[in-house]
């Protein structure tokens, strides 16, 4: 229902969106995920009609919208900073778009309380925006956008100005509203957790292009690149060297230990001796005492020494020195004294190897995470 066809946009010579192709289905909740500057907001603004693409087409409901301004497109935007009109009451804010659509008075009187109820603000129509909390203001913005019954609801980091609790509350509410109304939503965020919680599908963007498109589960469990593995969720990176590539997987050497991992990319031909980064999620490690019985064959094993432990509430994060690396292990219990020798077990399916592109040993985000954890 929305088709983006080789979209391109650059600002002052910097390519913000590069050959972007994306198809968004009717009734879908699609998250555009990526760090700042990846082109996700630019994409959203091109769909809304705030900026014009340099090249490429946007079709909404099969219609090329190139010639239409934002007022003519069947889209409604929810902004990061709410953009509630401060000189109008809550009800007048909602009425604002209805009037523009020349909705009849009776219909307006019907629809305003309806959308207010939908976002849980029933009875607050007479309030001024200044009297509302940030979360309430953003609900007004959602109600205002829904009131005009757009084909697509565009949301530009709508929750990022809110505190953590309100954010999670509104997140849940948004999903329910989307399910109840069947509205198509394109949701821009840089928060991977938010994207996982909300999106039917997630489009991970990098440098203006689509890096991976899929369900949250796909993207978390089978990241198509080291970039995605690193950006979505938390992961450990182990520097490795490729020993042998076969149909069953890759045999790699990590700090002298031979391991079997799953190739992360179905990429081109690989040669033995190539540098590889291996990603293992912290929850995919199992920590056992050094003197425990030999694990079952097929299970991958690394040896290390417990460095520190952090109690995080629902789980415990154990930091383990493995060679020169520090590895995070998430478990329910913990209880490992510092200095204890231990072994880390994981399945080869949970370890994904990526050919190292640049000279840097692992993507910087993970290193920063580790450095921060280590400094803790």
């Amino acid at each position, binding site marked *: 229902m929305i088709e983006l066809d080789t979209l391109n946009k650059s600002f002052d010579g910097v390519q913000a969106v590069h050959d972007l192709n994306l198809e968004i289905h009717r009734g879908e909740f699609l998250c555009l995920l990526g760090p700042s500057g990846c082109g996700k907001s630019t994409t959203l*603004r091109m769909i809304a009609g705030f900026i014009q693409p340099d090249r490429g087409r946007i079709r909404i409901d099969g219609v090329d919208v190139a010639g239409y301004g934002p*007022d003519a497109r069947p889209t409604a935007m929810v902004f990061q900073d709410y953009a*509630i009109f401060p*000189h109008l009451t809550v009800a007048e804010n909602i009425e604002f*778009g209805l009037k523009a659509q020349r909705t009849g008075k009776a219909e307006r009187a019907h629809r305003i309380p309806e959308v207010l109820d939908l976002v849980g603000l029933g009875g607050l129509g007479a309030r001024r925006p200044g009297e509302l909390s940030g979360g309430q203001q953003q609900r007004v913005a959602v109600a205002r956008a829904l009131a005009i019954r757009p084909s697509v609801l565009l949301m530009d980091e709508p929750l990022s100005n809110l505190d953590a609790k309100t954010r999670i509350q509104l997140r849940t509410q948004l999903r329910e509203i989307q399910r109840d109304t069947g509205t198509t939503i394109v949701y821009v965020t840089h928060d991977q957790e938010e994207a996982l919680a909300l999106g039917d599908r997630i489009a991970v963007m990098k440098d203006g292009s689509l890096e991976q498109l899929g369900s949250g589960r796909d993207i978390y469990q089978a990241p198509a690149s080291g970039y995605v593995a690193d950006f979505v969720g938390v992961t450990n990176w182990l520097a490795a060297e490729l020993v042998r590539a076969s149909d069953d997987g890759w045999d790699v050497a990590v700090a002298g230990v031979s391991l079997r991992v799953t190739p992360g990319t179905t990429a081109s031909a690989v040669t033995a001796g190539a540098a590889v980064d291996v990603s293992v999620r912290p929850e995919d490690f199992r920590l056992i005492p050094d003197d425990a019985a030999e694990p079952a064959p097929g299970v991958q094993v690394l040896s290390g020494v417990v460095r520190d432990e952090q109690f995080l509430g629902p789980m415990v994060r154990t930091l383990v020195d493995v060679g020169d690396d520090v590895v995070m292990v998430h478990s329910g219990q913990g209880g490992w004294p510092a200095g204890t020798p231990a072994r880390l077990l994981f399945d080869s399916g949970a370890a994904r190897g990526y050919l190292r592109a640049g000279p840097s040993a692992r993507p910087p985000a993970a290193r920063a995470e580790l450095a921060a954890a280590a400094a803790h």
Partner: protein
Amino acid sequence: MPDTIKRSSDAPGSAARSAAVEPHWQRRSRRRTLTDRITVGTLALYVGGLLGLLVLVPTLYLLFVPNGADWSRLTESRFTEASINTATIGVASTLSATVIGFLFAYALSRPDVPGRGVLRVMALLPLISPPFVVGLAVLLLFGRRGLITHELFGQDVSLLGVGGLWLVQSLAFFPLATLTLLPTLKNIGSTLEWASRDLGWSWFQTFRRVTLPLAFPSILNALLLVAMFVITDFGNPLLIGGGYRVLSVEAYVQAVGRQDFGMAAVLCVVLFVPTLILFWIQRRVLRRRATVTVSGKTGSLPPMPLPAVVRRTLVTVLSGISVLMVLIYGSILLGSFTRAWGADWSLTLNHWETALLRADDIRNSALFATVAAVITTISTLVAAYVVHRTRVIGRSVMDGLAVLPAAIPGTMIGVSWLVTFNEPPIALTGTALILVLVMVVRAIPVGYRTAVTTINQISPSIDEAATDLGASRARVIGRIMFPLLGGAFTTSFVFGFLHAINTLSAVIFLTSPGIGLGAPTIVNLAEFGQWGAATGVAAGLMVVSFAGLALAKLIFGSKLRMYEL
């Protein structure tokens, strides 16, 4: 020393001993409290005395000058007419100046309007030159022997009178509105306008339903500010009002022409009442606006582009006004090189020689304005400190007196000073001091506002920290406040200088044959038809102003935060 500290922090057993020998820190604290009180007391006395003498005394004194007969003469047709004229031209010029000011501000807030650099200069010119220069120029261009009316079109009509005054005041005072409106128009933020477009409204409807309502408090504020300047304007009505008499000019005629100070005082009070009301409302509006912040920051959304039609219209209108402005300031320059405007158009350097001969006036203006700016800057910073950082009694009175001169018509200051300081106990008439001090009064409100803004930006925890570390009040002021106020210091100084050098209405009453000033000299020369000399002095005065501003910009660069268009 360590011994004392140790003892004072000793176990409870030594309490009896330390009661006998007062701990060192306690004694020091007592001494500190005393010196702090002396410091604050001295500063408060200075501020209170200065404001009392320069603002309160003359204003009150003026109220007692007229007798009952003077008051009853108000109903004479001459004076009722002047009142009605003041109100009429006041409303007309205020509206037109605010509309022009809005157009300039709107254009300056839109990155897709071309030539904003030029517009910025056009809006800046009237702010840093005396407002009556516009009147003088219109006289040259559209007067009876005007370059355009007479020479170009051979007409014997002139714009003298209410029409010309309207034009002149619109052009002279629109930058005040621009300056007031620009921050708001910039802050309304593209997001709200985009939201309106996104919800289905066209550009025009968005302008009407979002931009204008959000700018409304600022527009009101601009109207009030411009109105205060327009109805107290003195130079322009004097120069081109012709037979159209307004209160400020009438008060001048009564005081200087007829030596009737009672009547002059009455007219000043009549003019003071509306300005005071406008001023009071403006302060209220400002305060309320401070609590209503416009949400929807600019964010990273590009500003909404103007429709081509709107952009073309806006550019056309503003170009027209800009051309007029260029003509106006150009004619001043041209006039200063023309032998006899309207009769002999040959070029000459005579007027510049005269201006240099009359250099005394310009030099006095520059010198007195500099001294006045120094006094104003220091005094307003001290005043802001006393009012906002101490608990001295009478702070609110001082605050009121520091902003009040903004509401007092210049004519009223002139007349009140003339009658107050003419004879003992404080006889200052005919001295340079009275001119410097009256310039100080004119510059105090703007300097004070700058100082207060800056001092409120310095977190109280900074001087609390210094006090906590053992610094005295005097030390906090000298070592913490003054260095941190550096930027405000220079800004306030340049503002003060420009206000002082351009003031006309207050000083025209107080200059004496021995000590002239540039601004009154220009008007006097123009009144006698000595265009060349008048434009020569005007050009000279403007050169000094611009040079001063340029010099300050050169030295202080971005630290100088003023006229941010």
